[in-house]
């Protein structure tokens, strides 16, 4: 293998066939894409959803304070995290090895506070659909921008309270509705409540209940493209839901400053995989499956929404004519509802 004289640097094990007459150079497109992506940067939107008091806002802070970006967030350490009352978006531009990423985390207020919690999922569903709507409007515009800003929610982290027994009816309802419009990743919140045996038992129970209720969480089985994907995703499916602990306070342990929670009987380290699975979650979301999540959002969830919306608007205009026709051919049937 001879040294390349081409101007671009060597990629990961690229073969160069200088002087090889059968080499066309199609694989160079990977390098071109890479350069373009580095220039453009990536966007990723995560939403955290769950009952009040489960540590969503804390986890958001942990995500940013952890290896994703330590420098950008400097909150006042004395300030307690107050109760979230409206949907808040926090965006950060992060750069790593020349790759730029705009990570947006959308923090939602806790639901399930009231005595009667019917329809508490409405505000969240509305928000997600609104983001799709914005994108759709931009897409069907006549003069549309070259790169449509993507504010669609790519991934939704659902917080399950650590009861240790089974899913509550409210959680089941909520997840069922959300899994139809967005990728859901369920996590067990405040996992420092559960011992390791309780944690395993709880995970098993949750997985069974999700299966029994037909709730498809990410990674969805039906979108596995080939055997390799399936293998990787199966491993992840074994670990779902992740048991996470969030903290934005730093403590000194063994000479290192790490994020954790200090109690009288020990310190829980957030990034220690023996203590909790926060590192797995972060890696899944950002390191390995980010592109896949974005693809599924774009090609499946968004398309479903788009089809529905466009059909609605079509029917809205031609509804009168259809009704007249139907009355002619089916004079005794009821008014057809769309």
């Amino acid at each position, binding site marked *: 293998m001879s040294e390349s004289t081409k101007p671009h640097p060597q990629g990961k094990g690229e073969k160069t066939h200088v002087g090889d007459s059968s080499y066309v150079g199609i694989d160079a497109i990977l390098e071109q894409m890479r350069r373009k992506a580095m220039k453009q940067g990536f966007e990723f939107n995560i939403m955290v959803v769950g009952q009040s008091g489960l540590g969503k806002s804390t986890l958001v802070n942990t995500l940013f304070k952890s290896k994703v970006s330590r420098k950008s967030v400097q909150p006042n350490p004395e300030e307690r995290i107050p109760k979230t009352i409206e949907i808040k978006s926090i965006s950060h531009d992060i750069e790593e090895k020349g790759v730029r990423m705009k990570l947006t985390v959308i923090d939602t207020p806790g639901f399930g506070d009231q005595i009667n919690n019917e329809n508490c999922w409405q505000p969240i569903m509305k928000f997600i659909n609104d983001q799709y709507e914005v994108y759709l409007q931009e897409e069907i515009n006549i003069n549309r921008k070259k790169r449509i800003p993507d504010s669609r929610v790519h991934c939704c982290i659902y917080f399950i309270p650590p009861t240790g027994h089974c899913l509550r009816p409210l959680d089941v309802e909520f997840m069922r509705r959300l899994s139809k419009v967005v990728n859901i990743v369920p996590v067990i919140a405040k996992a420092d409540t559960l011992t390791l045996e309780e944690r395993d038992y709880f995970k098993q129970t949750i997985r069974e209940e999700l299966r029994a209720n037909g709730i498809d969480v990410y990674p969805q089985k039906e979108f596995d493209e080939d055997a390799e994907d399936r293998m990787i995703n199966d491993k992840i499916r074994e670990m779902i839901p992740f048991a996470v602990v969030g903290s934005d306070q730093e403590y000194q342990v063994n000479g290192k400053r790490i994020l954790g929670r200090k109690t009288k009987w*020990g310190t829980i380290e957030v990034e220690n995989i023996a203590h909790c699975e926060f590192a797995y979650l972060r890696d899944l979301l950002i390191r390995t499956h980010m592109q896949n999540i974005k693809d599924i959002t774009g090609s499946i969830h968004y398309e479903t929404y788009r089809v529905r919306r466009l059909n609605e608007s079509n029917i809205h205009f031609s509804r009168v004519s259809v009704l007249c026709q139907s009355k002619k051919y089916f004079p005794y049937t009821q008014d057809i509802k769309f």
Partner: protein
Amino acid sequence: MIERPETAVPSIAQRNLEGYVGFANLPNQVYRKSVKRGFEFTLMVVGESGLGKSTLINSLFLTDLYSKDYPGPSQRIKKTVQVEQSKVLIKEGGVQLTLTIVDTPGFGDAVDNSNCWQPVINYIDSKCEDFLNAESRVNRRSMPDNRVHCCLYFIAPSGHGLKPLDIEFMKRLHDKVNVIPLIAKADTLTPEECQLFKKQIMKEIQEHKIKIYEFPDTEDDEDNKLIRKIKEKMPLAVVGSNVVIEVNGKKVRGRQYPWGVAEVENGEHCDFTVLRNMLIRTHMQDLKDVTNNVHYENYRSKKLAAVTCNGVDTTKTKGQLTKSPLAQMEEERREHVMKMKKMEAEMEQVFEMKVKEKKQKLKDSEAELERRHEQMKRNLEAQYKELEEKRRVFEDEKANWEAQQRILEQQKLDASKTMEKNKKKGKIF
């Protein structure tokens, strides 16, 4: 001689004894009697599922109320709120305690939780009503006390404050039963978070004027100091566990985590010991007294006021309380007579039924016998006929044979006759 002072209000003069009378033994007598009688205590636990109620009960009383073969309400999520009661008799040091645990599975679990406190209120009221009726009877030898003495309310450790459901429930129950709020699964909270949370809860409790159980002040200074310390720690943050783990060579009950062991009985880790001491060791009798004197009296006066106000009680009561004892006795006698009559009627019915059955049985056996008799007779006749037939055949044969014999004899005679004739003829020639 000490002169009786002439006052309008007779005051109790204090005298000093000159010798040993012996009524210092009274507490011992009370003690012995109560020990013989045994104690009753009813504890109610309320809270969302998964907050560790069953585990805490098991830890408090060091028994497995809900064991693997009798799974408690935690293993199943209910669609509606139920009120379940389980009785257990525990003995310790010769003292026996009938402990009734009232659990409320399904509380706060549904999507729509309006009126989920109603079954609980109904239960408490019904127990008070039972006691009221038992108290008003003429014959009240046995008065079981099933009233709820204490209600432990479990607050989820969200770290923010009370939920509307918590506030609503406590407001409705604080004048029916002693409410003690607890922070469940307190090992979720760091000490600072715990402090903040407790302060927040107490603030909200005062805001909404919820009357939780107040510890009575005693004359003893030492006790008062302890009580004040307990009051500062309200609501108590508890952790429950019945699993024994070894820590530094000592066996303690606790929860094992990868980062350490949260000990249940360690005062620095949680307030479990405070709760246990308060509930069982020092204030159990006080809880019962408050239930009897305050909550029950409230219920009773409300109930009786309703009756006398309206003249007619809208809810049916077994004994009308406005009648005189004689009328009450009449009523009871009538009840008793009616009961007797009913029993008599029932017994007669049963008797008649039995007689009918027996008759039926006898008839059946008679018919059976008849049938068998007929059968045997038929059998016999058949056999007889057979025999007749055989005899006839035999007779026929005999007749035939005899006829044959006669013919043969005749032939022989003829033959001998002809032979003689021949002989005679032969001789003549």
